[in-house]
């Protein structure tokens, strides 16, 4: 018996999602009265997971696995689950983990629940609560197979420290016959990604044109935030498509989401409503976003945002 988690790394460093999933796995293991084991690939310091309650880390050191390959990584998790006799496998909601999740469920013949937001509501039978209807509802799901997979929503459970000493064990598997070859990776390395960001600053049509995006970027800089945009903005080509957040764009589950000049169409709100605190800045007090937001400023972005940047700089300086 064990709870296994897949701890994602990037260039050898654990991603924030790995610590959240480890924290969650510890909670599940406590409820089941069992141990937490992690599997990772090329982690520089795999023992770091001990801080979140992981007792054992199976770490693979193999340079040929530096690039994520779904089939091979799925096989790694499958082999780890078999070796550790795992009943429950925990994944994050990153793009790579979502890529793996269906493959793994197929390979392990495992029941799977995606978008799980809290610890299981019952352990026998294992019952979890997950979001449905794009965060407009929750649904309880009973997982009926011997091995079960839980995919945890980003930023829902949080990171909880639970210091133990993690035993790090070398692990290896024979590579899967992966007939998918990566020919190019195009990734901004100097920017926070929307998926990993604690704060997201997002602009809409109210900014009047791409030439005004320095407002969004400057505010994002002060907050260490990722930048995003509404659908019309990406449709008009003001901003690249990969910044589009909303139902058909990227989902956002940040701690703070600041919407500037975005009216708040239902499709937009569906994509961002997993964010914890929402701020809207808009000239139109009737904009639907004011109903969805926690804090609102009725005002002109061209006046309010520079003011906000100044005040935040002053705040940072006095709290440094």
């Amino acid at each position: 018996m064990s709870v296994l988690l897949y701890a994602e790394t990037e260039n050898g460093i654990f991603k924030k999602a790995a610590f959240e999933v480890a924290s969650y796995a510890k909670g599940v293991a406590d409820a089941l009265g069992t141990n937490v084991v992690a599997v990772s690939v090329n982690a520089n310091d795999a023992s770091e997971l001990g801080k979140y309650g992981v007792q054992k880390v199976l770490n693979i050191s193999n340079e040929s696995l530096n690039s994520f390959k779904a089939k091979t990584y799925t096989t790694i998790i499958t082999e780890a689950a078999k070796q550790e006799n795992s009943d429950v496998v925990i994944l994050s909601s990153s793009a790579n983990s979502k890529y793996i999740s269906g493959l793994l469920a197929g390979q392990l013949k495992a029941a799977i629940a995606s978008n799980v937001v809290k610890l299981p509501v019952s352990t026998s039978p294992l019952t979890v609560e997950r979001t449905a209807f794009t965060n407009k509802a929750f649904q309880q799901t009973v997982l009926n197979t011997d091995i079960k997979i839980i995919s945890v929503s980003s930023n829902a459970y949080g990171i909880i420290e639970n210091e133990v000493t993690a035993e790090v064990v070398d692990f290896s598997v024979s590579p899967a016959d992966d007939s998918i070859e990566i020919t190019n990776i195009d990734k901004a390395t100097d920017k926070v990604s929307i998926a990993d960001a604690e704060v997201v600053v997002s602009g809409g049509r109210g900014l009047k044109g791409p030439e005004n995006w320095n407002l969004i970027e400057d505010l994002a800089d002060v907050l260490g935030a990722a930048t995003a945009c509404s659908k019309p903005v990406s449709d008009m080509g003001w901003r690249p498509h990969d910044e589009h957040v909303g139902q058909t764009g990227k989902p956002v589950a940040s701690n703070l989401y600041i919407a500037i000049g975005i009216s708040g169409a239902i499709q937009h709100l569906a994509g961002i409503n997993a964010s914890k605190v929402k701020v809207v800045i808009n000239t139109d007090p009737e904009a639907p976003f004011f109903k969805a937001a926690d804090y609102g400023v009725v005002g002109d972005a061209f006046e309010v945002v520079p003011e906000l940047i100044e005040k935040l700089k002053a705040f940072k300086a006095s709290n440094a």
Partner: protein
Amino acid sequence: MKILVCISHVPDTTSKINFVENDTQFDTNGVSFIINPNDEFGLTRAMWFKEKQGASVDVINVGDATTEPTLRKCLAIGADNAIRVNATPTDSFFVASQIAEVAKSGNYDLIIAGRESIDYNGGVVQGILAELLGANFVNTCVGLEVEGTTATAIREIDGGKETLKTSLPLVIGGQKGLVEESDLRIPNMRGIMMARKKPLNVVEPTGNETHTTAGSFSKPEPKGSVTLVDASNIDQLVDLLHKEAKVI
């Protein structure tokens, strides 16, 4: 090239979400259903394969007879055949295994599903399907070209995208980017008339294996009303974000 597009029949985004029968069933009363947006991007991409490369395009749904108008809409957009597996889509494994049965006998080269449906948001049917078929798989696919049996796919990753080269048979989890919103097609009268004559085959399910049991639904606590801050008092906003919301 034979293409199968998996179609989820989902409530329109603007639908009121309510539950009936002790919160165990979604209340479909007054709800209009649409082609799942992620699937519609894939269907439109399939139409381009049909028009430019002579592909055939079938669409499939696992559901009861109420999903047929959605399949007819796919036929009106230009799909050649529709298949409905006559069963309640109880869980992701069940849906994937039913599609896999149809896919095996149909010898499809390319199966296009969406990255997730906008009702249950599971996002795993396409991966399970690929595994059951032993096909190659690309998720969150935002671009796809096929030449002969070689496919070039662009996958959205956190913070960017990557280009993948693979071969058919291939399953993708598609989304916006395969085509753009402005490329989506509204069925015209001729399409609608033709769709009436196109085959919509109803097949019975194979087996009934499921891995999960759906329990009751609940709704989040209603959100409190917005706290408005005067545009001349931005200090207050910073203060609230720091002391009350504790996010900065």
